[in-house]
């Protein structure tokens, strides 16, 4: 902008630097820790100089770590796989269920639409603990305990409200005329939905999907309570490094790095959509 003064530019640069420092420094530090042994991490005072080691990553990938207190075995890679599987499947199901509903609420105003929309959102209000406890009992009876299917269903509580709310706003903002014109040309409702509405709403869908993916990925309590050890996500799996014989900070750090990478990759890949896609509620000029 032409009327930005030098002072303002300097202030902006300082502000953005501070922001990056605050938000990125801890991540940077975690990355550093992931290349250190526990002994160098636990130094007083902490230091940035150390001899890097790949031992933490190696341990995570092979599933074995030799500590002085004995061999530590774990299955982090299958935790990572579970996280990936649970989050992806949940978001996929959430999109399949959520997009048509979002379209209905956003585009086809109908009797009770706001009430149903609010009801769906309100599933997010229930504190997870509240429903989780009785749920364990019902899952037991229904045979859903310790199944991926059961978990994916429960994960809908996290992903569905988010998807609905964001995608709905997006549908509302697509000018109705385009769809109308297409239908006048003799196309049916479904054709219009798939050929016109869906592609136009793609950025919103991508952004909602990504956010939902992140929230599903970070969940911790559902799988812990409802499934056995072989279905646990990274959030539970990484706690295995908090052992009776000490906390293995190096592996936890490496675990965090490995668990951020897929999501970060996804976000970078979808970055064009991400910001544009969240512009729900905007009335396009």
């Amino acid at each position: 902008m032409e009327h930005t003064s030098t002072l303002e530019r300097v202030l902006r640069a300082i502000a953005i630097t501070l922001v990056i420092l605050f938000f990125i420094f801890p991540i940077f530090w975690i990355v550093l820790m992931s290349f250190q042994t526990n002994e160098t991490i636990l130094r007083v005072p902490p230091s940035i100089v150390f001899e890097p080691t790949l031992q933490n990553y190696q341990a995570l990938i092979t599933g074995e770590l030799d500590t002085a207190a004995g061999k530590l075995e774990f299955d982090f890679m299958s935790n990572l796989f579970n996280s990936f599987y649970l989050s992806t499947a949940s978001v996929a199901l959430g999109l399949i269920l959520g997009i048509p509903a979002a379209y209905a609420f956003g585009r086809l105003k109908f009797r009770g639409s706001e009430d149903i929309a609010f009801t769906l959102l309100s599933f997010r209000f229930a504190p997870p603990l509240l429903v989780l406890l009785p749920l364990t009992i019902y899952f037991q009876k229904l045979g859903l305990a310790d199944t991926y299917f059961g978990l994916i269903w429960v994960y809908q509580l996290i992903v569905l409200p988010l998807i609905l709310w964001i995608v709905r706003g997006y549908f509302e903002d697509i000018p109705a005329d385009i769809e109308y014109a297409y239908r006048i040309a003799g196309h049916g409702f479904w054709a219009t939905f798939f050929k016109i509405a869906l592609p136009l709403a793609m950025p919103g869908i991508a952004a909602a999907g990504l956010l939902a993916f992140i929230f599903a990925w970070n969940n911790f309590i559902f799988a812990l309570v409802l499934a056995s050890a072989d279905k646990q996500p990274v959030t539970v799996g990484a706690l295995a490094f908090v052992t009776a014989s000490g906390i293995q900070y190096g592996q936890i750090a490496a675990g965090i790095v490995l668990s951020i990478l897929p999501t970060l990759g996804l976000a970078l890949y979808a970055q064009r959509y991400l910001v544009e896609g969240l512009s729900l509620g905007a009335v396009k000029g």
Partner: protein
Amino acid sequence: MSDAAASLPKRRGFRISRRWLPYVLSLPALLACIGILIPFFTAVAYSLQRYRLSQPWAHKWNWGENYWNFLSDSSFWNTLQVSLTYAFLTVGLELMFGLGIALLLQKRTRFNNFVSIMLLMPLMTAPALASLMWKLMTNPGFGILSYFASLIGFEDFRWASDPSTAMLTVVLVDIWVYTPFIMILLLAGLRSLPQQPFEAAALDGVPRLFVFWRITLPMLTPFLLTATLFRVIESIQQFDIIYAMTQGGPGDRLTVFQVEAYLNFFQSTNVGRSAALLMILWAITYVLSSIFIKNWLKLREKQRGEA
């Protein structure tokens, strides 16, 4: 439009009458979620019982007694106060910072886009694990942040372990994790605003602060409301960060609803009290969200009218 659309000839595919279409579209989502009502009502029933797993012989209906007892229970009022304070502080500060950062990154440049994605990394770190790392970073001996604090003169800063700074510390972690969520929503909002009002204001030489208060903020309100809505729901139900950092201590400084309910269930196995606490939490969330959503709908109606 709807009448015209309805009267269009349908060529092929299965037909659903125009009247039922919206219900058919929204029903699967509703059905998928409706199952949750069963455990929900079971939990309501638990909250009306004297129910401690370790004393099965004393299990009976006591109707509102669990709730009634809260009135004279100082730890309950403490929980309420701490939870509301936490939610107010975190959401308030995150909105401020989130908006500030979004304004800084508003211009579409490669650098800004890249930074905005990188800033999402804290959000991608599961709070349960992030807290472990923060706990290490604020450790008085090994912690890098404690080291920094000592460099700038806070020799003995005790972070989460001191009653006077515990709230500050967990709020800081919450800000670190969740500000990016608000930032990205608001950034999307800012970039989607129509340009004409701003161009007009610039031509007229309207002061930028005035533009911000009278044009930017009002137009951004729906985004602010959405961001606030999701953050309030989550913040008042915060568990991971607080439990991992202090387990609700020191003393009773941070015994928010979910921490208290969690301890009541998993340690004391006092199912009745735990469920009653969570029901109150649910009621608070419900009321707050209704207010937000009502305003959100009103605003959108208004904006559509103007557009």
